[in-house]
């Protein structure tokens, strides 16, 4: 009896710990990173595994990164209308749009010129079971088929982009699929585009640990910078008269925060904007003439001008001027020079 009591006492102590352990053996993923910050519907992802959610995140990232590169759907100039998502894919698409920096207006039905529609369809094809995912905004329609296997999800078609004049210039960051590892081939590129269509090989050794994979934030950030940087025009300086010049100071070489003073200076320049004015931005003053963070600062300035409805084409990125050498660890403030140029009629 005493022995029984001892056993029972031990059992009492062990039970809550074991119960907790059992509960954790069926892990429920933290769904927060997959859901929109506003008006999410967590019940649509309840019961889904992390792998299923990651697959949907790859697809939504892939589609939204292409959308970001189209001038018609530039986040600096467009507001999208979304309704409360009713599916897991819907939640992940809206989250990706949030992460991409789109202004989202939450509507009760399908109000608005730029209402976001999406769908996921299962198809039985000669290549097996595929799922095609669609995303459309106004006249712009993106579609791509994906196939799921034991390694993850992979594209099984080119991306189709309809309704944009610039579909050919979209560069897909399909390396995010390779990081899943496996032993497969998949096709990468945009349908009917002049850009190169490639077959990408996936190997077991490509398998990348979760914490080392390219994040959604990075993919979307790259796509955004690519679109903005590309929009900058080249001009013949003889056609223009220099009007105004200012030097913005960023706190350090890595920050994108402009601060109120710099923002006010841009608003004053934008106030005097005339059609056909262009702004030449010199963000790079490194002696070696190459600087990614300087490009990011130039893009940041371009974005600010675009917030005042000044077209991306009105921004010119001036080449690096070899004014100084900065060590990579140098965190001192950095200048960005802006010159306003007016077209000589």
């Amino acid at each position: 009896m005493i022995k029984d009591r001892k056993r029972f006492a031990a059992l009492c102590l062990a039970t809550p710990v074991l119960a907790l352990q059992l509960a954790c053996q069926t892990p429920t993923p933290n769904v927060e990173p997959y859901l929109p910050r506003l008006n999410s519907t967590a019940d649509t992802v309840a019961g889904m595994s992390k792998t299923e959610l990651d697959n949907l995140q790859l697809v939504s990232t892939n589609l939204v990164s292409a959308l970001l590169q189209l001038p018609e759907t530039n986040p600096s100039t467009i507001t999208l209308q979304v309704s409360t998502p009713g599916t897991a894919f819907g939640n992940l698409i809206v989250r990706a749009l949030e992460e991409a920096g789109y202004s989202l207006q939450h509507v009760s039905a399908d109000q608005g010129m730029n209402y976001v529609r999406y769908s996921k369809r299962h198809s039985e094809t000669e290549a097996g079971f595929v799922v095609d995912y669609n995303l459309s905004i106004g006249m712009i329609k993106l579609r791509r088929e994906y196939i799921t296997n034991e390694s993850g999800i992979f594209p099984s078609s080119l991306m189709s982009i309809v309704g944009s004049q610039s579909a050919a210039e979209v560069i897909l960051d399909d390396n995010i699929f390779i990081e899943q590892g496996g032993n497969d081939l998949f096709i990468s590129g945009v349908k009917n585009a002049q850009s190169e269509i490639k077959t990408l090989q996936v190997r077991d050794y490509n398998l990348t640990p979760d914490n080392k994979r390219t994040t959604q934030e990075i993919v979307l950030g790259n796509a955004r910078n690519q679109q903005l940087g590309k929009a900058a025009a080249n001009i013949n300086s003889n056609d223009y008269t220099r009007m105004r010049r200012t030097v913005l100071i960023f706190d350090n070489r890595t920050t994108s925060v402009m601060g109120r003073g710099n923002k006010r200076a841009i608003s004053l320049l934008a106030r005097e904007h005339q059609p056909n004015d262009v702004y030449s931005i010199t963000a790079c003053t490194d002696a070696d003439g190459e600087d990614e963070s300087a490009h990011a600062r130039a893009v940041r300035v371009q974005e600010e001008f675009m917030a005042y409805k000044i077209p991306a084409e009105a921004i010119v990125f001036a080449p690096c001027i070899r004014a100084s050498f900065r060590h990579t660890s140098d965190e001192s403030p950095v200048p960005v020079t802006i010159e306003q140029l007016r077209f000589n009629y």
Partner: protein
Amino acid sequence: MTKTLAASLHSAGSQHKAIAAVLLLIGFISGCVSTEAKNESGIVNAGTSDSMLEDVLSVLPQLIEPRINSIQFGPKVDELDVIAARNLAKAGYGIQRVSADQGVNFFRADKFENEDGIQTMRVSIGELEITREYATEGGIIVPAGPFELAGTRAQIDPSESMLGSKVGNDAIANNVEYTSIAPIEGGIPTISLLSEDIIQGVVNQATQGPRLTTINSTKLEVKNRFYDVDGTFANLINDRERVAREVIIFPNDSMRLGEEGKQRINKLLNQFSEASDLINVIGCSNGATKLAIGNEGLALGRANRITEELLTLGVPNRSILDDACWSPKSTGVDFPSRGVVIDLMRSES
């Protein structure tokens, strides 16, 4: 481990089995309870900030049109950001998450509390600021002061705010006061003029006579209108109609505005429409002066004094074009010798 648990259960009596089963169930529930407690925003007991922020934001549609405007939120999401985004989305604004401080309507909210327990909520959206004080009465938050608006002259009806009904007949809390926006730390970068005529003029001018340009209150380089009658802002005002003009005469060698000057500004502002108007301020000092700052300093100082007054009365910075005119000799009829000309320029569209 699971096997050991099963063996222990088997060896214990049936009564003990029942108790152990209950403990097991409690273990499961307690293991899961923390996830159920989280709400959508991840914020629990947001507290009094909710009603203060909601009250301040409830007047925003009277100042910035929802449905056609977006509000930008930075990457650092705090309690006030979450409450604001939820409310603004409900009001019909586009919500844009940005990676830094991008956008014309970038959102910031601050809450302060003084030693008397009066709390202040300040919301900045771009160059617009809305501030209000609140007190707690019987556990309920009530407005304790007027709405303070900066960066706008737009009229709002405070009784339409969320807590408007709790104000009662309190004349102060029912009021709207206009003020200037908080100073910019580090200032605004100077914006220089680069026109060839200016550069050429500077070379020719050398050190003789008054300068051709100066820096105004917004750190924008402007031309001396003694030489350039059209002024720096000609392309902003040429297609506008002058609907009112006030000339404020300052005493000799003075920058004191005086009561009469303030009244004249108020008179002009009664006609000001934020959507269509720009205010061109031309500070003048022409003729002899004994002051060391010279005519340029006086002209600029006078224009700055008027600009400061306009900003204090809520006129947005973007609506003010401050210019100057100075010379050691008197000009003709265009500008007064020691005053400021304020023109209200209205867009025809």
